[in-house]
């Protein structure tokens, strides 16, 4: 199966799109890649190139003296910027300290803020998330919070000063897609900062739907990393994000209960046989 796309052909699409402004930066790619779950660093590097992502997420864990290959070297070679996460933090305090450690480690004050409530669902813990977001914004961080698909919580995060809101489509790694498109639409309708769908994407159509609903971008890890062919899926999801964005701008037709002919009735041939 061909996984190469012709970049010239993509650029021929007559897109009149506004640039993607995120945290004071102007980005070309509306797809952020999560680096978790890739079995080999070589595959990760290929997937990064296929997604054309400019930002990739990264985590901090205890140093493993047996670890082989330098993740940061691979990411630097790909020319991507790092978006550290606070995955695995259950309290605002742990998330704030982790963000500060990431700032020391990677020299960036951008953070994908995750404060989760339990291991089973990995759903955000809203009160802790708000506390952590407030403290990090006050400390000068560019905070991109992973949040529930709750329009009110999204508004609170924006009011605090978060640079974006990143509602989940469904739980992390579940591949369940967007369980509540209505809520995502409500978040988009009201948001004054970029809305990035984070978590739940299972395949390309989920990413396209997110963009059709008006999201400004998609963050995707497992759907690509754990696909049978991660690089092919990286191409697919990149194309889906672009397709969804184009479709959103193009404006979909309204849904109708009954059919509406696309071929006119006027001039229809009379093919009735003569009466005998």
């Amino acid at each position: 199966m061909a996984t190469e796309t012709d970049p010239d052909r993509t650029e021929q699409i007559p897109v009149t799109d506004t640039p993607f402004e995120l945290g004071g930066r102007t980005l070309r790619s509306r797809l952020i890649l999560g680096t978790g779950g890739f079995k080999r660093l070589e595959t990760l590097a290929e997937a990064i190139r296929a997604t054309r992502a400019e930002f990739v997420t990264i985590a901090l864990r205890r140093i493993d003296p047996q670890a082989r290959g330098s993740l940061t070297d691979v990411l630097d070679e790909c020319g991507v910027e790092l978006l550290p996460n606070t995955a695995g933090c259950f309290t605002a305090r742990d998330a704030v300290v982790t963000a500060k450690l990431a700032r020391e480690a990677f020299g960036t004050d951008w953070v994908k803020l995750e404060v989760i409530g339990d291991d089973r669902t990995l759903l955000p813990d809203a009160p802790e998330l708000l506390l952590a977001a407030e403290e990090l914004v006050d400390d000068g961080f560019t905070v991109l919070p992973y949040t529930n698909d709750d329009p009110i919580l999204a508004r609170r995060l924006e009011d605090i000063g978060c640079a974006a809101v990143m509602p989940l489509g469904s739980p992390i790694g579940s591949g369940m897609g967007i369980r509540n498109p209505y809520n995502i639409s409500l978040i988009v309708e009201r948001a004054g900062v970029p809305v990035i769908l984070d978590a739940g994407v299972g395949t390309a159509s989920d990413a396209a739907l997110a963009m059709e609903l008006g999201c400004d971008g998609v963050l995707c890890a497992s759907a690509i990393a754990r696909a049978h062919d991660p690089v092919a899926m990286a191409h697919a999801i990149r194309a889906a994000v672009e397709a969804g964005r184009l479709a959103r701008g193009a404006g979909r037709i309204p849904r109708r209960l009954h059919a509406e002919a696309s071929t006119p009735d006027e001039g229809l041939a009379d093919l009735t046989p003569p009466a005998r």
Partner: protein
Amino acid sequence: MIYVNGEPHERDGATITELLADLGVEARARGVAVAVDGEVVPRAEWDDRRINEGERVEALSAMQGG
């Protein structure tokens, strides 16, 4: 006795830079961060900051993650 990433070590008085070397990590390496007793220790202090009896060091580095 001090603790490095949860493991006890007889390295009382060692600096953070020395403890990182024990783990095979260059203190100048990108993507490394250290906390002592739950507080971030800035990179600039690693050469001088000595770890005392009972202190818990978390020495972290970049890992793949969503």
